[in-house]
């Protein structure tokens, strides 16, 4: 038993996991409640020869990581609420130009400046639709530090696999909570590296011609292949085009490379689900309260179960549908006005059996809050 046990804040765990995943470039801008990620990486990155830069704003931080990713590095930025809004245009650029990167959004209450020091899960739908135009996106979340570590590494693996930005949607509660976690050994979590082109120097390289499996082998800026990268619709050389057949094909490629792999990207956890007649669906910090309640009520013989979602986008509809088919009630526990609730209702066969247990006042939802809402749903009063 040589396991290395650490006691740390969620933001630090995220930064440590990014380093484990091979992060070597981070650009950021101070914003509560995500700043500790930047602070930790400003110490740790130069120790391994990596680069940390504090940029002049949120927009330039997003742009800088895209530039660094093109030179062949694993890159990340971290932000919160208003900063996430500012990053959307460049995030769309990374989607269009298919540039791997990880964007951490430690959610706080919004809209606008909102409630910076308090938790929220209000950016779930922004993560999906904040960028203009049709597109798809991968977004992960985590409820405890062991999973923050795992999901951060997964975010890098998925970004490299699908050549896309991956959003890690933490929330203030998880980010500022201090708890123990076991540092995974080297090699314990597989690390995926970028698919590089095997096209030889002097041979015409098509940076934007997908292989049969939809993947695009990359060539680093500074390498032997010189090609164009643009946010405009582009042909297989990366040159701008308005040709309808190419535009049509590219938008399908961008959406399908993610939506057709929803089962591969889906990460979730199940607790007491076998015979559950009431299923709680939750994620992030609110899943902790949900799990506490489920354990507590199980001890009293109530058939409660928890489905914890770790992939929020692409939404794992097939998982939710299958798991909820026999449930009498499905209760979505979240700290917003019902953002995942919408997706769950669209996924299940009987949307009328789906209810919301939420809290949106900046205070973390408690097991008692959920219990009281369950009483109402069952018609038993509070």
């Amino acid at each position, binding site marked *: 038993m040589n396991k290395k046990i650490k006691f740390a804040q969620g933001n630090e765990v995220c930064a440590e996991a990014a380093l484990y995943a091979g992060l070597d470039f981070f650009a950021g801008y101070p914003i509560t409640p995500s700043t500790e990620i930047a602070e930790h990486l400003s110490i740790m990155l130069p120790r391994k020869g990596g680069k940390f*830069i504090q940029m002049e704003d949120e927009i330039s931080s997003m742009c800088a990581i895209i*530039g660094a990713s093109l030179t062949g590095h694993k890159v990340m930025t971290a932000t919160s609420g208003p900063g996430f809004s500012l990053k959307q245009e460049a995030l769309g650029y990374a989607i269009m130009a298919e540039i791997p990167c990880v964007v951490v959004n430690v959610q706080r209450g919004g809209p606008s400046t909102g409630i910076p020091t308090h938790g929220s899960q209000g950016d779930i739908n922004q993560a999906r639709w904040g960028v203009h135009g049709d597109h798809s996106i991968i977004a992960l979340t985590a409820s405890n530090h062991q999973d923050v570590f795992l999901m951060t590494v997964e975010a890098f693996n998925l970004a490299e696999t699908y050549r896309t930005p991956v959003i890690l949607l933490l929330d203030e509660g998880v980010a500022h909570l201090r708890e123990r976690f076991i540092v995974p050994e080297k090699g314990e979590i597989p690390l995926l590296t970028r698919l590089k082109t095997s096209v030889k120097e002097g041979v015409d390289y098509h940076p934007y011609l997908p292989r049969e499996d939809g993947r695009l082998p990359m060539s680093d800026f500074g390498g032997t292949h010189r090609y164009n990268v643009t*946010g405009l619709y582009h042909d297989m050389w990366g040159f*701008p085009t308005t040709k309808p057949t190419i535009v049509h094909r590219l938008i399908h490629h961008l959406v399908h490379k993610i939506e057709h792999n929803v089962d591969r990207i889906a990460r979730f956890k199940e607790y007491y689900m076998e015979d559950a007649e009431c299923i709680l669906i939750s994620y992030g910090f609110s899943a902790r309260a949900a799990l506490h309640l489920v354990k507590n009520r199980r001890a009293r013989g109530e058939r409660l179960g928890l489905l914890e979602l770790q992939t929020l986008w692409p939404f794992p509809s097939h998982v939710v549908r299958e798991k909820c088919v026999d449930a009498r009630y499905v209760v979505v526990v979240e700290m917003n006005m019902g953002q995942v609730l919408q997706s769950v209702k669209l996924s299940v066969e009987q949307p009328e059996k789906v209810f919301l247990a939420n809290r949106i006042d900046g205070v973390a939802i408690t097991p008692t809050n959920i219990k009281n809402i369950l009483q109402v749903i069952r018609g038993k009063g509070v």
Partner: protein
Amino acid sequence: MGVKDYIRERFFPHLWCPGCGHGIVLNNLIRAVENLGLDKSEIVMVSGIGCSARICGYVDFHSLHTIHGRALAFATGIKISRPELNVIVAMGDGDAVAIGGNHFIHAARRNIDVTAIVMNNRIYGMTGGQFSPMSGYGIKASTAPYSNIDPAFDLAKLALGAGATFVARTTTYHVKQITDILEKAIPHKGFSVVEILTQCPTEFGRRNNMANPADMMEFFKNHTVPVGSKAKKKNPDLIERGIFVQKEMPEYCSEYDKIVEDAMKGQQS
């Protein structure tokens, strides 16, 4: 090698209007790169959005056509992660000092080793002739139909004030000077700004009694003087061209290398 060895012929003809000055900038950039003997694979050309931004697609370097105003931020990420690459950024005037003004002053302040070429045609050409922060008082534009009341930046002074260590200005009339300046700006260790006044007869000239591109180049000839000339003292409206500053200061990537060295030492002990 000839000019054709530096361009992507597949992507021609270019989209610039007849009489546009941007092709002159492209031509002279290629000449400067050839004269410097740079390897095409060691150059990354980054641009923003607009007519000027299309320059990076035509050159056979690594090229990154980004979003409006942010070219320098992308370039910063490239340069810090691969300092051995030559990073050249092409921007328009609106791109560089309106929407991208913040990135412009901060790249200058850091003195990061990037060459910023500002192709200043004093107008938003691609969107149809709206005034920019470089249009200046009294100019007519599609969004200043009566007359522009916005004063212009002096881009060279802005760059100097922000900390750029190489600042120069020339025009598309002075083609030899473009090459000469770029040959100094590209190898300069630090943030270099080269403002090139370039003509947009279609959107600027047409509205300002200079619809003929030759008239606009004539304007560059008659209204500019070498830096420090006596004529400027007599007539302050004349525009100075040449090198305003060329000095050695600590460069950002080199300074960061020292941080890495210190951090690694701390790690060992």
